[in-house]
Protein backbone atom coordinates (compact mmCIF):
# COMPACT_ATOMS: atom_id res chain seq x y z
CA UNK A 1 0.00 0.00 0.00
CA UNK A 2 1.09 3.52 -0.75
CA UNK A 3 -0.64 6.24 1.24
CA UNK A 4 -0.78 9.82 -0.04
CA UNK A 5 -1.80 13.06 1.65
CA UNK A 6 -1.60 16.75 0.87
CA UNK A 7 -3.95 19.69 1.39
CA UNK A 8 -2.86 20.78 -2.10
CA UNK A 9 -4.64 19.22 -5.08
CA UNK A 10 -1.84 19.64 -7.65
CA UNK A 11 0.71 18.13 -5.34
CA UNK A 12 -1.64 15.23 -4.59
CA UNK A 13 -2.01 14.49 -8.32
CA UNK A 14 1.77 14.57 -8.75
CA UNK A 15 2.29 12.20 -5.82
CA UNK A 16 -0.37 9.79 -7.12
CA UNK A 17 1.76 9.33 -10.26
CA UNK A 18 4.81 8.34 -8.22
CA UNK A 19 2.69 6.32 -5.80
CA UNK A 20 1.21 4.37 -8.72
CA UNK A 21 4.70 3.41 -9.87
CA UNK A 22 5.75 2.28 -6.38
CA UNK A 23 2.49 0.41 -5.79
CA UNK A 24 2.65 -1.41 -9.13
CA UNK A 25 6.08 -2.79 -8.25
CA UNK A 26 4.56 -4.53 -5.23
CA UNK A 27 1.06 -5.22 -6.54
CA UNK A 28 -0.20 -2.75 -4.00
CA UNK A 29 -2.82 -0.05 -4.00
CA UNK A 30 -2.60 3.73 -4.00
CA UNK A 31 -4.76 5.25 -1.28
CA UNK A 32 -5.32 8.99 -1.06
CA UNK A 33 -6.36 10.55 2.24
CA UNK A 34 -8.66 13.56 2.00
CA UNK A 35 -8.98 15.16 5.40
CA UNK A 36 -11.76 17.69 6.03
CA UNK A 37 -12.56 18.10 2.34
CA UNK A 38 -15.78 16.23 1.64
CA UNK A 39 -15.52 16.48 -2.11
CA UNK A 40 -16.60 13.37 -4.02
CA UNK A 41 -15.82 15.00 -7.36
CA UNK A 42 -12.24 15.65 -6.36
CA UNK A 43 -12.01 12.11 -4.96
CA UNK A 44 -13.14 10.72 -8.31
CA UNK A 45 -10.66 12.96 -10.08
CA UNK A 46 -7.88 11.42 -7.98
CA UNK A 47 -9.13 7.98 -9.02
CA UNK A 48 -9.16 8.89 -12.70
CA UNK A 49 -5.55 10.06 -12.28
CA UNK A 50 -4.34 6.78 -10.82
CA UNK A 51 -5.58 6.30 -7.24
CA UNK A 52 -7.32 3.05 -6.24
CA UNK A 53 -9.04 4.28 -3.11
CA UNK A 54 -9.80 7.64 -1.60
CA UNK A 55 -10.53 7.88 2.13
CA UNK A 56 -12.71 10.79 3.24
CA UNK A 57 -12.00 11.64 6.88
CA UNK A 58 -13.17 14.35 9.27
CA UNK A 59 -10.73 15.62 11.90
CA UNK A 60 -13.14 17.48 14.12
CA UNK A 61 -10.96 20.62 13.98
CA UNK A 62 -11.87 23.55 11.78
CA UNK A 63 -8.48 24.03 10.17
CA UNK A 64 -5.31 22.02 9.67
CA UNK A 65 -3.58 21.19 12.93
CA UNK A 66 -0.61 18.87 12.98
CA UNK A 67 -1.55 17.14 16.24
CA UNK A 68 -5.04 16.05 15.17
CA UNK A 69 -4.03 15.32 11.57
CA UNK A 70 -1.13 13.18 12.83
CA UNK A 71 -3.60 11.09 14.84
CA UNK A 72 -5.68 10.48 11.73
CA UNK A 73 -2.70 9.60 9.57
CA UNK A 74 -1.17 7.29 12.21
CA UNK A 75 -4.46 5.42 12.50
CA UNK A 76 -4.77 5.19 8.75
CA UNK A 77 -1.19 3.91 8.29
CA UNK A 78 -1.94 1.12 10.78
CA UNK A 79 -5.37 0.46 9.28
CA UNK A 80 -4.07 -0.13 5.74
CA UNK A 81 -0.59 -1.37 6.74
CA UNK A 82 0.95 1.27 4.53
CA UNK A 83 4.44 0.95 3.09
CA UNK A 84 5.52 4.29 1.63
CA UNK A 85 3.64 7.35 2.90
CA UNK A 86 3.97 10.32 0.54
CA UNK A 87 3.08 13.71 2.00
CA UNK A 88 3.09 17.01 0.10
CA UNK A 89 6.10 19.06 1.11
CA UNK A 90 4.60 22.40 2.04
CA UNK A 91 4.97 23.66 5.61
CA UNK A 92 1.78 21.80 6.65
CA UNK A 93 3.06 18.54 5.20
CA UNK A 94 6.53 18.80 6.70
CA UNK A 95 5.37 19.26 10.28
CA UNK A 96 2.76 16.54 9.84
CA UNK A 97 5.26 14.05 8.36
CA UNK A 98 7.79 14.65 11.14
CA UNK A 99 5.30 14.26 13.99
CA UNK A 100 3.81 11.21 12.29
CA UNK A 101 7.25 9.63 11.95
CA UNK A 102 7.82 10.13 15.68
CA UNK A 103 4.44 8.61 16.59
CA UNK A 104 5.20 5.57 14.42
CA UNK A 105 8.87 5.48 15.45
CA UNK A 106 10.00 5.34 11.86
CA UNK A 107 12.24 7.04 9.31
CA UNK A 108 11.25 10.19 7.46
CA UNK A 109 12.83 12.07 4.57
CA UNK A 110 11.86 15.70 4.02
CA UNK A 111 11.98 17.31 0.56
CA UNK A 112 13.05 14.32 -1.50
CA UNK A 113 14.48 14.88 -4.97
CA UNK A 114 13.83 11.30 -6.14
CA UNK A 115 12.13 8.10 -4.95
CA UNK A 116 12.74 4.56 -6.24
CA UNK A 117 13.00 0.94 -5.18
CA UNK A 118 16.54 -0.44 -5.06
CA UNK A 119 17.53 -3.88 -3.77
CA UNK A 120 13.89 -4.27 -2.81
CA UNK A 121 14.06 -1.33 -0.41
CA UNK A 122 12.45 2.09 -0.59
CA UNK A 123 15.24 4.51 -1.51
CA UNK A 124 15.11 8.29 -1.53
CA UNK A 125 17.45 11.10 -2.52
CA UNK A 126 17.59 14.56 -0.98
CA UNK A 127 19.76 17.65 -1.08
CA UNK A 128 22.00 18.19 1.95
CA UNK A 129 24.72 20.59 3.06
CA UNK A 130 23.11 23.52 1.34
CA UNK A 131 23.00 21.86 -2.04
CA UNK A 132 26.64 20.76 -1.96
CA UNK A 133 25.66 17.09 -1.89
CA UNK A 134 22.89 14.60 -2.60
CA UNK A 135 22.30 12.05 0.13
CA UNK A 136 20.91 8.66 -0.91
CA UNK A 137 18.91 7.23 1.97
CA UNK A 138 17.34 3.82 2.36
CA UNK A 139 14.49 2.83 4.63
CA UNK A 140 15.01 -0.35 6.58
CA UNK A 141 11.55 -0.50 8.09
CA UNK A 142 7.95 0.20 7.33
CA UNK A 143 6.33 2.67 6.84
CA UNK A 144 8.74 5.03 5.08
CA UNK A 145 7.52 8.60 5.34
CA UNK A 146 8.58 10.98 2.58
CA UNK A 147 7.63 14.58 1.84
CA UNK A 148 7.50 15.43 -1.85
CA UNK A 149 8.01 18.97 -3.17
CA UNK A 150 5.76 20.32 -5.92
CA UNK A 151 6.64 19.83 -9.58
CA UNK A 152 8.98 16.90 -8.89
CA UNK A 153 6.71 14.39 -10.64
CA UNK A 154 4.24 14.81 -13.51
CA UNK A 155 0.63 13.79 -12.88
CA UNK A 156 -0.69 10.79 -14.86
CA UNK A 157 -3.09 11.46 -17.73
CA UNK A 158 -6.74 11.43 -16.80
CA UNK A 159 -8.44 8.10 -17.50
CA UNK A 160 -12.21 8.49 -17.08
CA UNK A 161 -12.63 4.74 -17.32
CA UNK A 162 -10.53 3.98 -14.23
CA UNK A 163 -12.54 2.66 -11.33
CA UNK A 164 -11.85 2.97 -7.66
CA UNK A 165 -13.56 3.36 -4.34
CA UNK A 166 -14.42 6.44 -2.35
CA UNK A 167 -14.78 5.40 1.28
CA UNK A 168 -15.83 7.44 4.30
CA UNK A 169 -13.61 6.58 7.23
CA UNK A 170 -13.61 7.63 10.82
CA UNK A 171 -10.70 7.44 13.23
CA UNK A 172 -10.23 8.36 16.88
CA UNK A 173 -8.65 11.76 17.25
CA UNK A 174 -7.50 13.10 20.61
CA UNK A 175 -7.69 16.86 20.62
CA UNK A 176 -4.68 18.95 21.50
CA UNK A 177 -4.89 21.94 23.87
CA UNK A 178 -3.45 24.42 21.37
CA UNK A 179 -5.89 26.67 19.51
CA UNK A 180 -5.94 28.60 16.30
CA UNK A 181 -6.73 32.19 17.28
CA UNK A 182 -6.76 33.66 13.81
CA UNK A 183 -5.83 33.02 10.20
CA UNK A 184 -4.85 35.69 7.71
CA UNK A 185 -4.05 35.24 4.07
CA UNK A 186 -0.48 36.35 3.46
CA UNK A 187 -0.11 39.08 0.88
CA UNK A 188 0.73 37.54 -2.46
CA UNK A 189 1.27 39.04 -5.84
CA UNK A 190 0.76 35.71 -7.54
CA UNK A 191 4.33 35.58 -8.80
CA UNK A 192 5.57 32.12 -9.79
CA UNK A 193 9.35 32.40 -9.51
CA UNK A 194 9.75 28.62 -9.79
CA UNK A 195 8.38 28.64 -13.33
CA UNK A 196 10.19 31.79 -14.47
CA UNK A 197 12.77 31.70 -17.24
CA UNK A 198 14.39 35.04 -16.42
CA UNK A 199 14.52 36.40 -12.88
CA UNK A 200 15.80 39.73 -11.63
CA UNK A 201 16.34 39.38 -7.90
CA UNK A 202 16.86 42.10 -5.29
CA UNK A 203 18.78 42.11 -2.01
CA UNK A 204 19.76 44.44 0.79
CA UNK A 205 21.81 46.58 -1.60
CA UNK A 206 18.56 48.41 -2.35
CA UNK A 207 18.19 51.27 0.12
CA UNK A 208 14.45 51.88 -0.22
CA UNK A 209 11.40 49.97 -1.30
CA UNK A 210 10.74 52.56 -4.02
CA UNK A 211 14.10 51.80 -5.59
CA UNK A 212 12.97 48.30 -6.59
CA UNK A 213 11.56 49.88 -9.75
CA UNK A 214 15.14 49.84 -11.05
CA UNK A 215 14.99 46.03 -10.99
CA UNK A 216 11.51 45.99 -12.50
CA UNK A 217 12.74 48.09 -15.40
CA UNK A 218 15.56 45.64 -16.07
CA UNK A 219 13.09 42.73 -15.90
CA UNK A 220 10.80 44.55 -18.34
CA UNK A 221 13.70 45.17 -20.72
CA UNK A 222 14.51 41.46 -20.60
CA UNK A 223 10.85 40.66 -21.16
CA UNK A 224 11.36 38.46 -18.09
CA UNK A 225 8.98 40.33 -15.84
CA UNK A 226 9.73 38.27 -12.78
CA UNK A 227 11.18 39.86 -9.71
CA UNK A 228 12.71 37.71 -7.01
CA UNK A 229 14.40 38.62 -3.76
CA UNK A 230 16.54 37.38 -0.91
CA UNK A 231 15.18 36.63 2.55
CA UNK A 232 15.55 40.08 4.16
CA UNK A 233 13.61 41.89 1.42
CA UNK A 234 10.56 39.70 1.92
CA UNK A 235 10.67 38.18 5.39
CA UNK A 236 12.24 41.07 7.33
CA UNK A 237 11.49 44.27 5.43
CA UNK A 238 8.32 42.96 3.73
CA UNK A 239 9.04 45.07 0.63
CA UNK A 240 7.93 42.13 -1.51
CA UNK A 241 5.47 39.33 -0.73
CA UNK A 242 6.85 35.89 0.09
CA UNK A 243 6.06 34.48 -3.35
CA UNK A 244 9.14 36.48 -4.48
CA UNK A 245 11.43 34.95 -1.85
CA UNK A 246 14.19 32.74 -3.27
CA UNK A 247 16.34 30.51 -1.10
CA UNK A 248 16.47 27.39 1.00
CA UNK A 249 13.36 28.27 2.99
CA UNK A 250 11.79 30.27 0.17
CA UNK A 251 11.45 29.08 -3.41
CA UNK A 252 14.04 27.10 -5.35
CA UNK A 253 14.35 28.41 -8.89
CA UNK A 254 15.89 27.26 -12.17
CA UNK A 255 15.67 30.10 -14.73
CA UNK A 256 17.99 30.19 -17.71
CA UNK A 257 19.15 33.65 -16.60
CA UNK A 258 19.30 34.90 -13.00
CA UNK A 259 20.31 38.40 -11.92
CA UNK A 260 21.37 38.78 -8.27
CA UNK A 261 21.35 42.51 -7.63
CA UNK A 262 22.64 43.86 -4.35
CA UNK A 263 22.46 40.32 -2.94
CA UNK A 264 25.40 39.37 -0.73
CA UNK A 265 25.15 35.66 -1.48
CA UNK A 266 24.32 34.04 1.86
CA UNK A 267 24.52 30.26 1.52
CA UNK A 268 20.77 29.85 1.97
CA UNK A 269 20.14 32.09 -1.01
CA UNK A 270 22.70 30.24 -3.15
CA UNK A 271 20.96 26.95 -2.34
CA UNK A 272 17.84 28.34 -3.98
CA UNK A 273 19.54 29.35 -7.23
CA UNK A 274 22.00 26.48 -7.83
CA UNK A 275 20.04 25.06 -10.75
CA UNK A 276 19.97 28.37 -12.63
CA UNK A 277 21.52 28.55 -16.10
CA UNK A 278 23.61 31.72 -16.10
CA UNK A 279 23.94 33.72 -12.89
CA UNK A 280 24.83 37.43 -13.08
CA UNK A 281 25.76 39.36 -9.94
CA UNK A 282 25.89 43.10 -9.40
CA UNK A 283 27.35 44.20 -6.09
CA UNK A 284 29.46 47.09 -4.94
CA UNK A 285 31.51 44.88 -2.62
CA UNK A 286 34.19 43.09 -4.71
CA UNK A 287 34.47 40.48 -1.94
CA UNK A 288 30.74 39.67 -1.85
CA UNK A 289 30.17 35.90 -1.68
CA UNK A 290 27.73 36.11 -4.58
CA UNK A 291 30.61 36.53 -7.07
CA UNK A 292 31.86 33.00 -6.19
CA UNK A 293 28.53 31.62 -7.40
CA UNK A 294 28.14 33.84 -10.45
CA UNK A 295 29.06 33.37 -14.09
CA UNK A 296 29.31 37.10 -14.73
CA UNK A 297 29.61 39.93 -12.30
CA UNK A 298 29.92 43.67 -12.24
CA UNK A 299 31.51 45.33 -9.23
CA UNK A 300 29.71 48.60 -8.86
CA UNK A 301 26.90 50.59 -7.27
CA UNK A 302 23.60 49.13 -8.43
CA UNK A 303 22.11 52.64 -8.57
CA UNK A 304 24.66 53.48 -11.24
CA UNK A 305 24.93 50.11 -12.99
CA UNK A 306 21.26 49.13 -13.27
CA UNK A 307 19.97 52.05 -15.38
CA UNK A 308 22.96 51.67 -17.72
CA UNK A 309 22.41 47.91 -18.00
CA UNK A 310 18.68 48.35 -18.63
CA UNK A 311 19.42 50.84 -21.43
CA UNK A 312 22.08 48.64 -22.99
CA UNK A 313 19.84 45.58 -22.91
CA UNK A 314 16.91 47.53 -24.39
CA UNK A 315 19.14 48.54 -27.31
CA UNK A 316 20.41 44.98 -27.74
CA UNK A 317 16.91 43.48 -27.68
CA UNK A 318 15.49 45.92 -30.24
Amino acid at each position, binding site marked *: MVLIYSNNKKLTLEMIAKGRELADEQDGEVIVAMIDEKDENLANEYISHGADKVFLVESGVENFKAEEYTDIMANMVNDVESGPVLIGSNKYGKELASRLAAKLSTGCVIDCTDIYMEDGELTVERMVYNGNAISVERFSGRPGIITVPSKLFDPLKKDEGRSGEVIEKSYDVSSSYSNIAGI*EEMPSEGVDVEAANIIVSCGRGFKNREDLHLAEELADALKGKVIGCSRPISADLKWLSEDHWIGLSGHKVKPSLYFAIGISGQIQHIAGIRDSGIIVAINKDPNALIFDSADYGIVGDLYEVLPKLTDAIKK*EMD
Partner: protein
Amino acid sequence: MNIIVCAKQVVDVREIKIDKQTNKPILKGIGKTISDIDKNAVEEAIKLKEENKDTKVTVLSVAPFDAREQVKELLAMGADEAVLVSPPEEFDYNTVSTLLAKAIEKIGDYDLILCGEASVDLFSGQMGPRIAGLLDIPQITYARAMSIEGDKVRAERDLTDKAVKMESTFPVLITVTKEINKPRLPSLMGILGAASKPIIEWDGSDLLEERMEPGIKSVDLRGVSMERKNVVYGEDPEEGVRKLVISLGKEGLLG
Protein backbone atom coordinates in the same frame (compact mmCIF):
# COMPACT_ATOMS: atom_id res chain seq x y z
CA MET B 1 9.15 28.89 34.18
CA ASN B 2 11.51 26.34 32.70
CA ILE B 3 12.54 26.70 29.07
CA ILE B 4 14.55 24.06 27.23
CA VAL B 5 16.20 25.05 23.95
CA CYS B 6 17.37 22.29 21.62
CA ALA B 7 20.49 23.29 19.71
CA LYS B 8 22.53 21.41 17.14
CA GLN B 9 26.22 21.54 16.45
CA VAL B 10 26.73 21.53 12.67
CA VAL B 11 29.63 21.68 10.25
CA ASP B 12 30.11 25.14 8.82
CA VAL B 13 28.44 24.54 5.44
CA ARG B 14 30.19 27.53 3.88
CA GLU B 15 33.50 25.68 4.19
CA ILE B 16 32.40 22.49 2.43
CA LYS B 17 34.37 21.65 -0.71
CA ILE B 18 33.87 18.73 -3.07
CA ASP B 19 36.73 16.24 -3.51
CA LYS B 20 37.15 16.16 -7.30
CA GLN B 21 38.54 12.61 -7.27
CA THR B 22 35.87 10.90 -5.19
CA ASN B 23 33.06 13.39 -5.91
CA LYS B 24 32.24 13.48 -2.22
CA PRO B 25 31.94 16.49 0.05
CA ILE B 26 34.93 16.86 2.36
CA LEU B 27 33.47 17.02 5.87
CA LYS B 28 36.57 16.24 7.94
CA GLY B 29 38.54 19.13 9.34
CA ILE B 30 35.71 21.60 8.83
CA GLY B 31 34.85 24.10 11.53
CA LYS B 32 31.85 23.41 13.75
CA THR B 33 29.27 25.90 14.87
CA ILE B 34 25.81 26.03 16.45
CA SER B 35 23.18 26.02 13.68
CA ASP B 36 22.20 29.65 13.24
CA ILE B 37 18.41 29.36 13.62
CA ASP B 38 18.98 27.55 16.93
CA LYS B 39 20.63 30.76 18.12
CA ASN B 40 17.37 32.58 17.37
CA ALA B 41 15.66 30.03 19.63
CA VAL B 42 18.21 30.68 22.40
CA GLU B 43 17.79 34.46 21.98
CA GLU B 44 14.01 34.13 22.30
CA ALA B 45 14.44 32.09 25.49
CA ILE B 46 16.79 34.68 26.99
CA LYS B 47 14.35 37.49 26.12
CA LEU B 48 11.56 35.59 27.89
CA LYS B 49 13.86 35.12 30.88
CA GLU B 50 14.47 38.87 30.99
CA GLU B 51 10.73 39.55 30.92
CA ASN B 52 9.61 36.81 33.30
CA LYS B 53 11.07 36.35 36.76
CA ASP B 54 12.18 32.92 37.93
CA THR B 55 12.80 31.62 34.45
CA LYS B 56 15.50 29.06 33.81
CA VAL B 57 16.92 28.42 30.35
CA THR B 58 18.52 25.04 29.69
CA VAL B 59 20.28 24.32 26.42
CA LEU B 60 20.07 20.70 25.27
CA SER B 61 22.11 19.11 22.52
CA VAL B 62 22.72 15.60 21.26
CA ALA B 63 26.38 15.88 20.40
CA PRO B 64 29.76 14.41 21.16
CA PHE B 65 31.19 16.00 24.30
CA ASP B 66 33.54 18.04 22.10
CA ALA B 67 30.58 20.36 21.52
CA ARG B 68 31.31 21.98 24.93
CA GLU B 69 33.02 24.95 23.29
CA GLN B 70 30.09 25.65 20.96
CA VAL B 71 27.56 25.28 23.76
CA LYS B 72 29.55 27.72 25.93
CA GLU B 73 28.69 30.44 23.43
CA LEU B 74 24.99 29.85 24.20
CA LEU B 75 25.69 30.04 27.93
CA ALA B 76 27.59 33.27 27.31
CA MET B 77 24.54 34.65 25.51
CA GLY B 78 22.60 34.08 28.73
CA ALA B 79 21.38 30.48 29.01
CA ASP B 80 21.72 29.07 32.55
CA GLU B 81 22.97 25.57 31.95
CA ALA B 82 23.61 23.04 29.22
CA VAL B 83 23.03 19.32 28.87
CA LEU B 84 25.01 17.33 26.31
CA VAL B 85 23.80 13.87 25.38
CA SER B 86 26.25 11.63 23.53
CA PRO B 87 24.74 9.81 20.53
CA PRO B 88 25.25 6.12 19.74
CA GLU B 89 27.53 5.17 16.87
CA GLU B 90 24.69 4.82 14.38
CA PHE B 91 21.75 7.17 14.57
CA ASP B 92 19.02 8.80 12.52
CA TYR B 93 16.35 11.44 13.19
CA ASN B 94 14.30 8.89 15.11
CA THR B 95 17.21 8.06 17.44
CA VAL B 96 18.21 11.68 18.05
CA SER B 97 14.66 12.92 18.64
CA THR B 98 14.09 10.02 21.06
CA LEU B 99 17.27 10.96 22.93
CA LEU B 100 16.17 14.60 23.10
CA ALA B 101 12.70 13.64 24.34
CA LYS B 102 14.15 11.26 26.96
CA ALA B 103 16.59 13.96 28.10
CA ILE B 104 13.74 16.48 28.36
CA GLU B 105 11.79 14.00 30.48
CA LYS B 106 14.85 13.48 32.67
CA ILE B 107 15.31 17.25 33.09
CA GLY B 108 11.71 16.93 34.19
CA ASP B 109 9.99 20.16 34.93
CA TYR B 110 9.53 21.92 31.60
CA ASP B 111 7.02 24.46 30.31
CA LEU B 112 8.35 25.57 26.97
CA ILE B 113 10.62 23.82 24.47
CA LEU B 114 12.16 25.94 21.73
CA CYS B 115 13.90 24.78 18.55
CA GLY B 116 15.04 26.40 15.32
CA GLU B 117 12.74 25.68 12.36
CA ALA B 118 15.52 23.53 10.84
CA SER B 119 19.29 23.08 11.02
CA VAL B 120 21.43 24.73 8.35
CA ASP B 121 23.30 21.54 7.41
CA LEU B 122 20.45 19.17 6.55
CA PHE B 123 17.46 21.53 6.69
CA SER B 124 14.82 18.90 7.40
CA GLY B 125 13.06 20.53 10.32
CA GLN B 126 12.06 17.16 11.76
CA MET B 127 13.32 17.57 15.32
CA GLY B 128 10.75 20.00 16.71
CA PRO B 129 7.63 18.13 15.56
CA ARG B 130 9.20 14.77 16.40
CA ILE B 131 10.00 15.82 19.99
CA ALA B 132 6.51 17.29 20.41
CA GLY B 133 5.02 14.04 19.08
CA LEU B 134 7.10 11.88 21.42
CA LEU B 135 6.20 14.03 24.44
CA ASP B 136 2.60 14.21 23.24
CA ILE B 137 2.42 18.00 23.54
CA PRO B 138 1.25 20.64 21.03
CA GLN B 139 3.67 21.95 18.43
CA ILE B 140 3.69 25.46 17.03
CA THR B 141 6.11 25.48 14.10
CA TYR B 142 7.53 28.36 12.02
CA ALA B 143 6.84 31.01 14.68
CA ARG B 144 7.96 34.47 13.58
CA ALA B 145 6.67 36.16 16.74
CA MET B 146 5.73 34.95 20.20
CA SER B 147 4.81 36.21 23.65
CA ILE B 148 3.77 34.84 27.00
CA GLU B 149 0.66 36.16 28.70
CA GLY B 150 -0.15 34.54 32.02
CA ASP B 151 -0.57 30.81 31.60
CA LYS B 152 -0.64 31.06 27.82
CA VAL B 153 1.80 31.44 25.00
CA ARG B 154 0.76 33.20 21.82
CA ALA B 155 2.66 32.80 18.58
CA GLU B 156 2.28 33.80 14.98
CA ARG B 157 3.16 31.15 12.40
CA ASP B 158 4.42 31.90 8.90
CA LEU B 159 2.99 29.20 6.62
CA THR B 160 3.95 30.96 3.35
CA ASP B 161 0.36 31.28 2.13
CA LYS B 162 -1.16 32.08 5.51
CA ALA B 163 -0.21 33.74 8.78
CA VAL B 164 -1.76 31.71 11.60
CA LYS B 165 -2.08 33.01 15.16
CA MET B 166 -1.87 30.24 17.75
CA GLU B 167 -2.32 30.04 21.47
CA SER B 168 -1.59 27.26 23.87
CA THR B 169 -1.20 26.51 27.53
CA PHE B 170 1.99 24.80 28.74
CA PRO B 171 3.84 22.58 28.08
CA VAL B 172 4.25 23.36 24.42
CA LEU B 173 6.99 23.12 21.78
CA ILE B 174 7.66 26.04 19.47
CA THR B 175 10.00 26.19 16.48
CA VAL B 176 11.14 29.66 15.45
CA THR B 177 12.19 31.24 12.16
CA LYS B 178 15.11 33.62 11.64
CA GLU B 179 12.76 36.62 11.55
CA ILE B 180 11.71 36.27 15.20
CA ASN B 181 14.74 38.19 16.54
CA LYS B 182 18.38 39.03 16.07
CA PRO B 183 20.56 36.84 18.30
CA ARG B 184 22.79 38.89 20.59
CA LEU B 185 26.54 38.55 20.63
CA PRO B 186 27.83 37.43 24.02
CA SER B 187 29.08 40.32 26.14
CA LEU B 188 32.44 40.15 27.90
CA MET B 189 30.56 39.69 31.21
CA GLY B 190 28.56 36.93 29.60
CA ILE B 191 31.66 35.14 28.40
CA LEU B 192 33.29 35.37 31.84
CA GLY B 193 30.07 34.23 33.53
CA ALA B 194 29.71 31.24 31.20
CA ALA B 195 32.87 29.68 32.60
CA SER B 196 31.10 28.87 35.86
CA LYS B 197 27.81 27.66 34.36
CA PRO B 198 27.25 23.91 34.45
CA ILE B 199 27.58 21.74 31.33
CA ILE B 200 26.11 18.35 32.23
CA GLU B 201 27.08 15.28 30.21
CA TRP B 202 24.78 12.29 29.83
CA ASP B 203 25.58 9.07 28.01
CA GLY B 204 22.86 8.58 25.41
CA SER B 205 22.78 4.81 25.83
CA ASP B 206 21.77 5.27 29.50
CA LEU B 207 18.66 7.16 28.38
CA LEU B 208 17.41 4.47 26.00
CA GLU B 209 15.75 1.34 27.31
CA GLU B 210 17.12 -0.62 24.41
CA ARG B 211 19.38 -0.09 21.43
CA MET B 212 17.58 1.68 18.60
CA GLU B 213 18.10 0.54 15.03
CA PRO B 214 18.06 3.47 12.61
CA GLY B 215 14.94 3.33 10.41
CA ILE B 216 16.86 4.95 7.64
CA LYS B 217 20.46 4.75 6.50
CA SER B 218 22.51 6.95 4.22
CA VAL B 219 23.88 4.64 1.52
CA ASP B 220 25.66 7.26 -0.57
CA LEU B 221 26.65 10.91 -0.46
CA ARG B 222 27.39 12.47 -3.84
CA GLY B 223 29.00 15.85 -4.18
CA VAL B 224 27.22 18.37 -6.37
CA SER B 225 29.73 20.87 -7.60
CA MET B 226 28.54 24.16 -8.94
CA GLU B 227 31.03 25.22 -11.59
CA ARG B 228 30.56 28.85 -12.52
CA LYS B 229 32.53 31.01 -14.93
CA ASN B 230 33.32 33.65 -12.28
CA VAL B 231 34.02 36.41 -14.81
CA VAL B 232 33.91 39.68 -12.90
CA TYR B 233 34.09 43.06 -14.56
CA GLY B 234 35.59 45.37 -12.01
CA GLU B 235 36.47 48.40 -14.13
CA ASP B 236 34.13 51.34 -14.62
CA PRO B 237 30.43 50.46 -14.74
CA GLU B 238 30.02 51.66 -18.33
CA GLU B 239 32.68 49.23 -19.53
CA GLY B 240 31.35 46.45 -17.27
CA VAL B 241 27.84 46.83 -18.65
CA ARG B 242 29.12 46.81 -22.24
CA LYS B 243 31.12 43.60 -21.69
CA LEU B 244 28.29 41.92 -19.78
CA VAL B 245 25.78 42.58 -22.56
CA ILE B 246 28.24 41.13 -25.12
CA SER B 247 28.71 38.03 -22.92
CA LEU B 248 24.97 37.51 -22.41
CA GLY B 249 24.45 37.93 -26.17
CA LYS B 250 27.06 35.23 -26.83
CA GLU B 251 25.24 32.95 -24.38
CA GLY B 252 22.16 33.41 -26.57
CA LEU B 253 20.21 34.92 -23.68
CA LEU B 254 19.24 38.24 -25.24
CA GLY B 255 16.54 38.19 -27.86
